[in-house]
């Protein structure tokens, strides 16, 4: 039986979700996606630049991928809802990553506005993936409101700091019965593997790949890390001990 990620009525093979942002030349996005072998890719919605009217990131994203527009730029639930409806109007699907951020220093999401937006958009039939600060009671409310998954941060967006909120994520993995996707802060493939080892359903990352000296190679590394972490989780990690436990037999020693 295949180990597939189930979200929004779809069964998805890859547990690595990549962003398409922070590239000076968006043509590399196609190569990153190919190396990552991701099935879901995030995009943002912005005003057309009339000096470059032909620019459109979708040209660099292969057909058949699931597009996950984010509501970046939104500072309130109303702004997120407005962006989500506009994104859906593009005709590329009804998935949305709710991202509501007023804090410009740490880029931490506003969980309360995120919940409000989730309630509205889930009722309108969107497949809602809310980006949030890890918080079990709030995650339960997001699920009750109709979120298809919950996406707690590991560390601030773009910081590459890893799983600083590890224990809160572990609590959510234990208690929440929709996919828990670690989104934001992952900087190294080992962070992604760790998130998968503790039972995250998937990881979402952008900067870790885009800020690498070789994004295509890094995307490949992340693909392997996510697969390794997931296999380890399914295999069952061994118990942890404070003392040593010998790896070789304790009898039959050669004696002088």
């Amino acid at each position: 039986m295949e180990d597939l990620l189930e979200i929004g009525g779809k069964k998805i093979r890859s547990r690595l979700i990549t962003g398409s942002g922070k590239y000076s030349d968006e043509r590399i996005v196609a190569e990153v996606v190919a190396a990552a072998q991701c099935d879901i890719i995030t995009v943002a919605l912005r005003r057309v630049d009339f000096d470059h009217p032909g620019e459109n990131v979708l040209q660099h994203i292969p057909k058949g991928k699931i597009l996950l527009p984010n509501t970046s730029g939104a500072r309130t639930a109303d702004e997120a809802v407005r962006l989500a409806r506009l994104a859906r109007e593009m005709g590329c699907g009804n998935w949305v990553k709710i991202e509501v951020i007023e804090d410009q220093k740490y880029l931490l999401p506003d969980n309360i506005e995120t919940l409000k937006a989730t309630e509205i958009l889930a009722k309108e039939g969107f497949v809602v993936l809310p980006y949030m600060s890890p918080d079990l009671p709030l995650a339960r409310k997001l699920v009750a409101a109709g979120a298809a998954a919950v996406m707690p941060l590991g560390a601030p967006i773009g910081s590459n700091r890893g799983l600083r909120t590890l224990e809160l994520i572990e609590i959510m993995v234990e208690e929440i019965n929709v996919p828990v996707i670690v989104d934001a802060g992952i900087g190294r493939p080992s962070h992604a593997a760790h998130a998968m080892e503790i039972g995250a359903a998937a990881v979402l990352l952008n900067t870790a790949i885009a800020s690498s000296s070789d994004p295509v190679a890094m995307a490949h590394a992340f693909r392997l890390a996510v697969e390794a972490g997931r296999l380890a989780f399914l295999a069952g990690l061994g118990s942890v001990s404070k003392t040593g436990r010998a790896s070789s037999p304790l009898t039959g020693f050669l004696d002088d």
Partner: protein
Amino acid sequence: MNIRINGKPESIAPDMSIEKLLSARSIDPACVVVELNKTIVKKDCFGSTVLKGGDVVEILRFVGGG
């Protein structure tokens, strides 16, 4: 006729539909979404939606993002 497009005041000819506006700016209608006075304009209405003085138009497209 004065309207606002993407936050900037612009002067356009009368009887300009959204379809004509996009075409004049070399914008592929399949790659954008349009909001007129805070209401989304469906793509199949681009030709029949004609702009009036004072209209506020937003034309957006997908860009790279995380």
